[in-house]
């Protein structure tokens, strides 16, 4: 694996605020890598440091093995797609896209050829002479993308590029971006606060909070095996149950009930169980308990609320121990519905539950 971007011990302080706190990540060549976190978590600052628009207070940034140090943005082999695009309002689409090549003193004929090619790539043919203000948000977004891509950067940095688009267009662009990235084979470092966007597009995701790096993992691993409570609650919906490891693979929760869970912690450790609402199933209280497999955990409960959500049903269940959990059940023909007040069995597979140490 060739490493495109290597961050080692990156810290950024603004006056007395620590925006990025000792972050180390290696991003592979050709990877679609997302920096995910709530606003103010330091992800954009991290991106800006790779671009050279900010300099780290401590730590080293290497791009393809070259230490960047205090190298200014114009001397780095990266380009940025800015949040809200930052298109030059006094230039046409062609002039905007050709800007980087012109600065690099590429010949006019080559500029024309490459600009034409990238305009085709992002499907902006026919818009060449327009000014940014004469275009829709989606079109402006494509210009911003083309303006960066045309320079064939070693790494493309994207700062919430889809943030300003409406939902439908954003979803369409997610696929398009992913496809584009695979086609051009450029390393993408993608900043977003939208966990769904990160999950669907990325090869790997880094979750950040308050300047700290919490977990780096592929989307599936990130979702199935969150490293801590923040990651578990930031990505998707999660129920948390307080408990204590009783034996390997067994956790005792409120009410003294022992349940199965994925855990490597030693017995006696206080843990927090993370259960996804869609990984739990409901059965009537009088169902045949011997029909469940050995890996199933069965807990009795009572339906508190039922909400009809269209494609699924949302339940709030009080477990016998007293804890309340959210459960989603698919709105499919064979799935039984349970009304509030009904006694049910809540069932989950041990490996679907992660025990997190606090």
């Amino acid at each position: 694996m060739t490493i495109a971007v290597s961050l080692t011990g990156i810290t950024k302080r603004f006056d007395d605020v620590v925006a990025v706190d000792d972050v180390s990540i290696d991003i592979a060549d050709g990877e679609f890598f997302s920096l995910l976190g709530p606003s103010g978590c330091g992800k954009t600052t991290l991106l800006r440091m790779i671009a050279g628009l900010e300099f780290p207070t401590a730590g080293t940034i290497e791009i393809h093995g070259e230490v960047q140090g205090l190298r200014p943005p114009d001397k780095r082999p990266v380009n940025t797609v800015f949040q809200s695009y930052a298109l030059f309002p006094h230039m046409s689409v062609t002039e905007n896209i050709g800007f980087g090549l012109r600065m690099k003193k590429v010949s006019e004929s080559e500029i024309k050829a490459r600009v034409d090619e990238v305009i085709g790539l992002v499907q902006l043919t026919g818009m060449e002479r327009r000014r940014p203000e004469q275009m829709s948000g989606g079109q402006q977004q494509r210009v911003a993308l083309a303006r960066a891509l045309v320079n064939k950067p070693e790494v493309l940095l994207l700062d919430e590029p889809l943030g300003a688009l409406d939902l439908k267009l954003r979803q369409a662009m997610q696929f398009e971006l992913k496809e584009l990235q695979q086609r051009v084979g450029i390393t993408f470092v993608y900043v977003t606060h939208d966990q769904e966007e990160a999950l669907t597009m990325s090869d790997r995701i880094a979750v950040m909070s308050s300047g700290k790096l919490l977990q780096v993992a592929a989307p599936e691993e990130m979702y199935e095996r969150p490293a801590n409570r923040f990651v578990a609650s930031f990505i998707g919906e999660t129920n948390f149950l307080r408990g204590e490891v009783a034996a390997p693979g067994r956790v005792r929760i409120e009410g003294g009930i022992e349940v199965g869970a994925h855990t490597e912690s030693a017995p006696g450790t206080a843990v927090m169980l993370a259960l996804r609402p869609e990984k739990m199933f409901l059965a009537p209280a009088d169902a045949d308990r011997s029909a469940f497999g050995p890996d199933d955990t069965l807990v009795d409960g009572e339906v508190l609320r039922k909400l009809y959500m269209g494609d699924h049903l949302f339940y709030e269940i009080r477990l016998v121990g007293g804890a309340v959990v959210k459960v989603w059940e698919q709105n499919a023909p064979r799935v039984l519905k349970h009304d509030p007040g009904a006694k049910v069995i809540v069932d989950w597979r041990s490996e679907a539950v992660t025990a997190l140490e606090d």
Partner: protein
Amino acid sequence: MADLADTTAIAHHERDALVESSRTGFLVASPAYIYLIVFFAIPFLIVIVYSFASRSPTGATRLENWNFDSYIKLFDTVVVQVVSRSVWIALVTTVICLVLAYPFAYYLATRDRRIRNVLLVLVMIPFWSNFLVRTYAWRFILSNEGPVGTAVEWMGFQLNVLFTPTAVIIGLVYGFLPFMILPLYAAIERLDWRLVEAARDLYADGWTAFRNVTLPLTKSDIIAGSLLVFVPSLGAYVTDTILGGAKTEVLGTFIVRQFQAARNWPFGSALSVVLMAVMLAAVLIRTRTGAREV
């Protein structure tokens, strides 16, 4: 059909509302209109009328025998010299103001709010005292006996700058520099710095980014500031009277001389009309080019 009737009714309604709102607008603006008509438009019309008047042998203005003599006189060598000197002095003043103001406005706009406000107040403090008094102060500063003059003399030279075009230009730059700083400051302050970052990201070094992004995006305010300096410099009277001499006569002093010493009111009026026309042309060019900007 009913739909059509409805839409026409709505259209009428909208038009009535428009007429109504423009009427209110006019009412609100009317004090200013009246002021401008009484104290600007009517006097200026009188000036235009006088410019076609004739003179008695003693020099008194006669509102009869209307003629173009005053306008023909505009092409006299003396007049052409005065006009070109005025334009030249105003141009040099404008260029110096621009060169001084742009870096300062840039510096000002990029400070944090507290420092910025202090500096802005400093820029405006001169307005708190009388322009005439301040210009007299410059007369002392620039005189051979003044601080600069003494220092220069001590080094074995003579300053001899007072009553020269240089002194007038120094006075004008001093007087009108804030008019250049303020629009430029406003322009740079509202500049979208992400555009400059984008240029830097696209391989432009600091200077190239400035030339390709900052400068073009503040162009219309450069023109605005230049006009704010050029137009009053062209008509300057006080500065030239106090800091200039016989050899630096400019339009302002020349016009006043026609009304006073020379007792040639029609010619003075014609000169005023020309000055007015030049300024109006400059402002018109500005509005035209301004309209084409973003």
